[in-house]
């Protein structure tokens, strides 16, 4: 291809994402766009095609990014190449959203015609605007009886400050307005600007591991060209490879001759080692490569940490393999080996948030068949010692003796919640309970309020979002960002089972709530840990001081004393089932502890709210 051909081709490319609040119809709109551009025959059409992992379908959220190339014949008669890059839809995945946005020139903003803008959408729109993306507003679900497109149009203008006079009125479900959206993508979103003759600069915005091809990297070519046989270099790691395959997703992986400046696609290069591709890195030519890497991709640090331990200690290496495989597809996941007296060998893992943590945990159990013990999540605490040194603690059991601590600082977030004004009281009450500091409250219109609090991250990572949802009947939306560390009166609560300290059960708690929480947790553990053959005292202690205690009574009777006749197989099955249940428990000292017990600290608020 000549330079002119390449530039001509480039002028017909449109790269965009779809920004929407969960349930506002992003997946349905993506499906309609695929349909309209004939990317798929009707038979291939599966509902919500872009959400490809089972887990995503089940939870109705997008976790992994996907990109797809589409051909669209516009009203002006020209054929355009679209790259639709999907974005995750949960607050835990802000970082992944930022990555996919950086690979685009524009974004389609989908707002529900009845519900209006939600906190989550707002956060992502600002991310897009920060990335200089052109925004195409779409008011979706206009066919619903309670749709109020004009109110939403005003909201988009007032709240975000976008010109919404040309916002498309659409119903992805009913297929209304789809063509208009495609036309606006052509007209409003600028074509990519890169130089095809410059040294290669391609941005890795995602990657996945394929057993046959090695690492498949999803790239946006910013400058230059890449084709099979090219020698390439990863700018962050310095590793060099030879390209074995370049292609695009249509949405099936389809090989192409080359990827040019402006293109979005994938490449493989027999990359075997997990650590060699870093998401966010820039790919360039091995010789005469670019001098400077692309800006914008910032590796976000995990906010939540927990320990992951195999129940079967022999599976430690399997767990490492599983984490390494997952890490490849998930740049936000961090892990390093750690040892617990109670649980043996495992990993301390860092996650973007609680949902991210649950997803990883579930994938390990489901895809890798490793039963896990997950310890309660923790944030990173800054501990300033009496001798002036400073340490970071991501595992509660590592908090030093109180005598050696000058002060402890914990991360705070700015939490933004949006809800109908009927729920202002409920939200404020919840935030106070979570040690929140009131910052601001503003009316968006007559009925909707935006509330801002500063809240310790540790309170957020537990079950804040769930409680917010339940206290506001699901009407409140929520977004947060880290704002820094503040000193708090924090203490470590240790849990003793049968008079032995179980390090994996320790947690950090604010001094003012310590007694109450201690009482709740020992009761909770009593519920969660089944009876053993002997009585098991449970104690909660701060330092040497026991603040709460409870007792699991000894098992009194467990014997099949039923008349089963000659059905021995059934008896065997029953015993097998009981035995299987035991295998899912962890032997801690002499006590068998089920998985749920290690998360008891998360369940404390059940009681708390009931009270």
């Amino acid at each position, binding site marked *: 291809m000549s330079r002119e051909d390449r530039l001509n081709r480039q002028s017909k490319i449109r790269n965009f994402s779809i920004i929407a609040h969960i349930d506002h119809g992003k997946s349905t709109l993506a499906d309609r766009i695929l349909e309209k551009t004939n990317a798929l025959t009707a038979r291939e059409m599966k509902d919500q095609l872009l959400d490809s992992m089972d887990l995503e379908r089940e939870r109705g959220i997008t976790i992994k990014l996907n990109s797809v190339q589409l051909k669209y014949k516009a009203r002006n008669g020209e054929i355009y190449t679209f790259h639709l890059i999907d974005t995750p839809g949960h607050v835990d995945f802000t970082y992944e959203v930022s990555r996919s946005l950086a690979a685009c020139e524009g974004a389609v903003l989908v707002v529900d015609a009845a519900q209006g803008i939600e906190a989550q959408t707002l956060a992502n729109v600002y991310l897009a605007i920060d990335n200089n993306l052109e925004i195409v507003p779409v008011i979706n679900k206009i066919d619903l009886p309670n749709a109020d497109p004009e109110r939403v149009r005003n909201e988009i203008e007032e709240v975000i400050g976008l010109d919404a006079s040309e916002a498309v009125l659409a119903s992805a479900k009913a297929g209304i307005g789809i063509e208009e959206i495609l036309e606006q993508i052509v007209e409003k979103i600028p074509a990519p600007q890169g130089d095809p003759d410059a040294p290669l600069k391609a941005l890795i915005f995602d990657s996945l591991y394929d057993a046959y091809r090695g690492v498949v990297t999803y790239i946006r070519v910013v400058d230059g060209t890449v084709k099979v046989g090219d020698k390439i270099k990863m700018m962050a790691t310095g590793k060099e490879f030879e390209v074995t395959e370049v292609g695009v997703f249509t949405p099936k992986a389809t090989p192409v001759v080359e990827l040019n400046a402006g293109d979005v696609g994938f490449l493989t290069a027999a990359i075997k080692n997990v650590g060699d591709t870093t998401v966010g890195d820039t790919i360039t030519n091995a010789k005469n490569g670019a001098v400077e890497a692309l800006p914008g991709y910032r590796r976000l640090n995990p906010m939540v940490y927990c320990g992951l331990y195999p129940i079967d200690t022999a599976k430690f290496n399997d767990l490492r393999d599983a984490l390494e495989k997952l890490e490849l597809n998930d740049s936000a996941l961090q892990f390093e080996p750690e040892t617990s007296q109670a649980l043996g060998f495992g990993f301390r893992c860092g996650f973007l948030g609680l949902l991210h943590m649950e997803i990883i945990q579930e994938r390990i159990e489901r895809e890798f068949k490793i039963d896990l013990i997950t310890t309660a999540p923790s944030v990173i605490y800054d501990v300033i010692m009496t001798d002036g040194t400073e340490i970071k603690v991501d595992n509660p059991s590592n908090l030093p003796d109180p005598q050696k601590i000058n002060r402890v600082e914990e991360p705070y977030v700015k939490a933004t919640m949006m809800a109908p004004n009927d729920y202002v009281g409920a939200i404020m009450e919840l935030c106070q309970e979570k040690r929140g500091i009131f910052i601001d409250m503003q009316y968006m219109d007559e009925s909707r309020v935006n509330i801002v609090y500063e809240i310790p991250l540790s309170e957020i990572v537990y079950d804040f979002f769930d409680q917010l949802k339940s206290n506001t009947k699901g009407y409140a939306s929520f977004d947060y960002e880290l704002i820094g560390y503040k000193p708090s009166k924090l203490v470590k609560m240790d849990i003793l089972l049968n008079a032995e300290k179980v390090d994996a059960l320790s947690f950090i708690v604010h001094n003012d709530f310590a007694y109450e929480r201690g009482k709740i947790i020992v009761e909770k553990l009593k519920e969660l840990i089944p009876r053993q053959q002997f009585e098991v005292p449970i104690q909660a202690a701060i330092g040497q001081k026991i603040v709460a205690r409870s007792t699991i009574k000894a098992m009194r009777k467990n014997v*099949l004393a039923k008349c089963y*006749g000659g059905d021995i197989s059934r008896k065997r099955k029953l015993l097998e089932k009981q035995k299987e249940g035991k295998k899912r428990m962890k032997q801690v000292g002499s006590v068998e502890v089920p998985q749920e017990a290690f998360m008891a600290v998360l369940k404390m608020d059940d009681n708390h709210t009931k009270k």
Partner: protein
Amino acid sequence: MKSAYIHIPFCHHICHYCDFNKVFMKGQPVDDYLDALANEMKLTVKPEQDVFKTIFVGGGTPTALDERQLSKLVESIQELLNFHQEIEYTFEANPGDLSKEKLVILRDAGVNRLSFGVQTFHDELLKKIGRSHRAKDVFESIENAKAAGFDNISIDLIYSLPSQTKEDFIDSIKTALSLGLVHYSGYSLIIEPKTVFYNLMQKGKLPITSEDTEAQMYDTLIDQMEKHGLHQYEISNFAIPGYESRHNLTYWNNEEYYGFGAGAHGYVQGLRRANYGPLKKYMEPVNNGDLPIMSEHKVTREEQMEEEMFLGLRKTKGVSIRHFAKKFGINPTEFFAEQIKDGIRKGLLETNSDQIFLTRQGRMLGNEVFQSFIGVSNH
């Protein structure tokens, strides 16, 4: 020497806890079923070789059959199964169902043991668990049975029934013992799926007995029985020495037995078998000359060893080391060394020169021990 279990799946009333294979009797093809049962026995048994030392007719409710049907059943059994002269031949009976006429039919057909499903002597509780009989029916039936010449009589009691107190149960034990019988069974209620109780439990409408109360009930049962000279020979069974149920012992001794009838289970030539439960599915093959087998499992040698342990340990005498070694060619204290050591360490198992057996505490927590012997050979 053979054993046979024969299943009569008909009931006039269905108890709220029962998950055995059974149907309401009204409108059922009872005669066809009895014919099919005879056919199955004919197909299975080899008259020259098979001499029966125990026969147990259970249900359902065998005594729900009327006199004609009952005669037909016992005649088939007599005709088709070759009795050993010291046979133990048991009929399960529902108190109140056994008329003097029926008792005579049974006695004349060689039946020499009756097992009554009494469950409790509290009429209120009987009503709550869906039983049709009342306490007075028990006294009458037992008196009639004794008068008809039956001296080997057992009754079943159930404890941890919904809303049953410990005192209720002690009353029932005392009343039961006052009858001066030679054998008693005491079962704990297990709520099984597809029962009235299970559905109530799902709705949260069933008062569940606590583990502590249940344990106390079981403890009391053992104590009271022993005090009255009825020794515990199995987790749920008590007898005057010499009156242990030989049929039930075939199960615990891990011996083979035939299972005849719809939904019956058998253990024949190393195969554990289950018959079809639904009457039609059972009768069709049998009437065409085929066995009505729904599933069949060849018990591996390892499984046999495991079963020898978890069935044998149900007996107070436990498992004979010598017998095990003779049967399997390996000493159980070697093959299950770890499990046995662990059981002893936990105070649940004990051994002497020939026996491995549960301690009193072990009887309370039997499943903890039984489990440990399962799936050992797979690892």
